[in-house]
């Protein structure tokens, strides 16, 4: 299988001590080069071709120049965005030594988890291969072709079968029975998340100030966010016991607590307001109560994680924090530009597009 980003540890320097200083300095320099307010203000007013040219004059020049003679407009932008992201993420892995390399590689599998879930959900809801493809984030190890092939298989069982041999294979196979029993996707999605997160945070808690501790603390926040997302989606649903699919390791809610709250959305929202996330999410929670729309709330959660990563970088410069902060911001940038390009193509107004952007 061709790998999108090579996350294997058997090439390069995976021995020796972690080179936090070097990698940290490089990712911070790259983070500083991400687009800022001024750039977005220009891009939202540009046509897709102009955006492509604007990208050519920035960090994306390599990809646009490689693809620019064959593609144009939104296609060119999307291909360049993803190729660029994969290149940047591969760079980070290749710079890293020692345990840092393992940490980064493990973390990037997050995108594999996302993509596998996307394919499963797409197949489950009978989405077209193109639709599924459009939601993939090829920044992990599984490359687009493999994922497209999976999407073409047409049934959830076949997709699970197709994933045999990947890190998710075993857990998915186990969850397949639950899926068949309940008829909802949650058990499978949960199996993917569980494989990703519980593998990462299991065992003794490392000292919170150590590089490992900083990393696990961040993962715990991610787990919290994931649990909150799942709970909000499932709140009030009768089909499935959400508590069953709670992911262990978070700090915000305990399993029983969430199981109790999930029955009533109002209570859940109130509990969220009281929780450690309450202050940072106050506006988003208000909006959620007013409109009931999850889209905006999801965006607020993304932003929250980016903020966590940013604070973490300032407090623990010699850890994996700068890397995670960069990865999140880069992913966000790619999503932003994609949103702008697609919005432009769909003829949305400047204001509508600006609302989609998260910085």
């Amino acid at each position, binding site marked *: 299988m061709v790998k999108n980003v090579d996350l294997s540890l058997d090439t390069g320097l995976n021995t020796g001590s972690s080179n936090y200083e070097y990698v940290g300095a490089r990712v911070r320099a790259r983070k500083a080069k991400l687009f800022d307010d001024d750039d977005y203000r220009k891009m939202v007013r540009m*046509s897709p071709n*102009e955006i492509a040219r604007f990208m050519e004059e920035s960090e994306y020049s390599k990809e646009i120049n*490689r693809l*620019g003679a064959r593609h144009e407009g939104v296609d060119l932008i999307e291909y360049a965005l993803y190729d660029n992201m994969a290149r940047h993420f591969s760079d980070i892995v290749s710079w890293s030594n020692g345990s840092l390399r393992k940490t980064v590689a493990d973390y990037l599998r997050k995108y594999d988890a996302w993509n596998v879930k996307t394919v499963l959900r797409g197949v489950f809801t009978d989405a077209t291969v193109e639709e599924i493809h459009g939601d993939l984030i090829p920044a992990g190890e599984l490359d687009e072709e493999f994922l497209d092939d999976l999407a073409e298989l047409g049934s959830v069982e076949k997709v699970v079968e197709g994933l045999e041999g990947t890190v998710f294979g075993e857990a998915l196979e186990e969850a397949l029975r639950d899926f068949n029993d309940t008829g909802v996707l949650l058990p499978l999605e949960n199996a993917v998340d569980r494989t990703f997160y519980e593998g990462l945070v299991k065992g003794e808690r490392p000292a919170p100030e150590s590089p490992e501790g900083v990393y696990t603390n961040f993962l715990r926040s991610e787990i919290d966010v994931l649990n909150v997302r799942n709970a909000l989606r499932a709140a009030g649903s009768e089909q499935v016991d959400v508590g069953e699919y709670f992911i262990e390791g978070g700090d915000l809610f305990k399993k029983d607590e969430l199981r109790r709250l999930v029955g009533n959305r109002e209570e859940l929202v109130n509990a969220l307001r009281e929780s450690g996330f309450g202050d940072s999410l106050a506006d988003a929670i208000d909006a959620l109560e007013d409109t009931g729309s999850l889209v905006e709330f999801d965006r607020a959660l993304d932003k929250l994680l980016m903020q966590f990563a940013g604070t973490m970088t300032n407090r623990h410069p010699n850890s994996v924090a700068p890397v995670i902060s960069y990865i999140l911001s880069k992913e966000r940038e790619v999503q932003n530009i994609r949103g702008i390009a697609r919005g432009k193509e769909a003829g949305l107004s400047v204001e509508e597009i600006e609302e989609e952007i998260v910085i």
Partner: protein
Amino acid sequence: MLRPKKMSKVSVAGSKGVLEDAVEVLHELNLVHVTDYDGSWEGFENGNPLEGGEEVSGKLVQVRAVMNTLGVEEDDYDEEEGTGFSTREELYDRLADLRERVNELEDDRNRIRDGLRDAREERRTLEPFVRLGIDIDLLKGHDEIELRVGLGDAEEVRGALEEADGDEYEVFGGDGVVAVASRDIDTDDVLVGVDFSEIDVPDGEGEPADLIDEVENRVETLEGELNGVESRIESLRDEHANFLLAAEEELSIEAQKTDAPLRFATTTNSFYAEGWMPTESYTDMVDRLQEAVGDRVDVRELETVEYNDEGHPEEHASEDDEDEENGNIDDPPVVQDNPGAAKPFEPLVNTINRPKYTELDPTIVVFLTFPFAFGFMIGDMGYGVLYVLMGYAVYKAVDSETLKALGVIGIWSGVFTFIFGYLYDDIFGIHPRGDLGIDFLIGAGVLSKGIQVEQTALMWLVASILFGIIHLNVAHIFGFINDLSHSVKEAVVENASWLLVLNGFFAWVFSLHLAESKPAFLVGEEAVLNENPMFSLGFTGLPEEVGIAMGVVAVVGFVMVVYGEGAIGAIETPTNAFGHVLSYLRIMAVLIAKGGMAFVVNVLVFGAYETEHPYQEGDSYIQFALTAPPSELVSEGQEVAFGGLVWMGLGEGTGVVLMVVGLLAAVAVFVLGHIIVLLLGITAAGIQMVRLEYVEFFGKFYEGGGDKFEPFGKPRKYTKEGR
């Protein structure tokens, strides 16, 4: 000189109807650094790109992509040929055609490369089987017999199987490749820990040697094809380089123009643009804009910014601290204004950061100190000439302005190295006057590096400290002037206070107060400033009263520092006022280290002998043997330090072989040795002096963070206006 060019903030406004014309003229003028409108005014939106921008940008992306594939560079432009298009349509047509051809070629190239990679991989997997020499089809498809092939040691494998249960096996091969045929033996188990790593048997049948021949042929054909494609790409590049470079220029200029309104504030019917320009060119701009668009646009000089940042109070009032830290959004961009000789030193300053508009530009001080100190440290006529040549070569060979500047810095440093070399009487570490009696112009050899003369070395130690004190005084004075624009109080407690501490303390050090407990070379009759082997200055120390008074001054300064900067100031005092001055001792250290290295090279080459020390009674002095073997020159009772490779070669009765070897060794050591000293000189003297400028000097006052002046526009190189 110490200040950047004075800048004015200007505005250009008009109705949307003249927007395009105004952009056109501004771009052509290439004078105004347009600032981006940040969307903060009620009723004003950022503008949208001009019409046609989408098409131009799309084509521009294609042009750049094609250039990238073909590898077109600026050098490929041929003045004698035209650009190959005269209208936009021609440009687009030719581009479409070229793009198609390039894509085809690239497809071909990718296909061939893939094929080549596969073929090479196949060859690699087949190679062991050629060594094994067994037909591929014989190694596959057996039901009862297990067949495994691997890289390893046949004997070892045989031995392991010997010991295993069951004896139905056979081992083939040797030469590092082993095939094992066995029945009813758990070979997994047996082969653990044996030198055997299994390889897969490739597809195909027949003799491996035949197969590999076929693959070789394929590789050769593909390599030929690849060369063909590469050369077609190359000829496409030669053919279209002019066109592509010109098209890129034409379209990127057009794209800059269509993009411009994105930076302007606009309403439904009008636009408003702001920017910076040197005050001196303002009237020129107004005239030219008038000429082109008449009264239809309104141009104004909003303000001329004074160098102290009190100049624009209304902005300052609204500016919170955060803005200030984020690089002074409202400060004008900086155009440094240094005399021609000092210009090349601007990049050296800008490497740290471009000066802010409101602070002094220290370039001139770097120009006055860097080459001087470099020359002082290396001080050798031979090296000086070589540095000048190296600097000139760099200047000639490179295109980048920054690297050119580096070349000029090299030349300046070389000149000073030569001058000090003359004063030290040093040429490649040899003293033409002292060693050979070549007495040229006056002044030669008035100084000495003090490699063997303690008093001289101590003199340079004191000189380094004095240089440091002067350098740091300049730094604090710069800081004082910079802070003066904020407030007088700040300037006094944060800068003048340090001047008092620094000068007060060192005046006390060089005073006779407590003279007996100070090192003798500092003050008193034996002070090097009183008398040293090179010159006598007659300075034995400041009077005791002056010393005490200056000590009090230092204490007053210290109190001011603590008042101004708090406890941090107290903690910093020993480092800032004492440590940073001692840091300049590296100047003397490099001087002696480099001199010492050159000395050693010459001792090896020419040999040396001991003589009486000219200054230090009872010590011996090492003298090069330049005119005759050291054994002949040495006087009774003294020793030869080293025979010298030259004299070993030329010695009587050495024979031709030894003579040649000796002389070759002498030349090799001389050349290599001095090259090493020459290059280490750059890293030692260059880097150490850069450090003193950056850390000790800049650290006292320099903030930096000015924006680069980037006027809107782009000078044309290949194309003409008006298509």
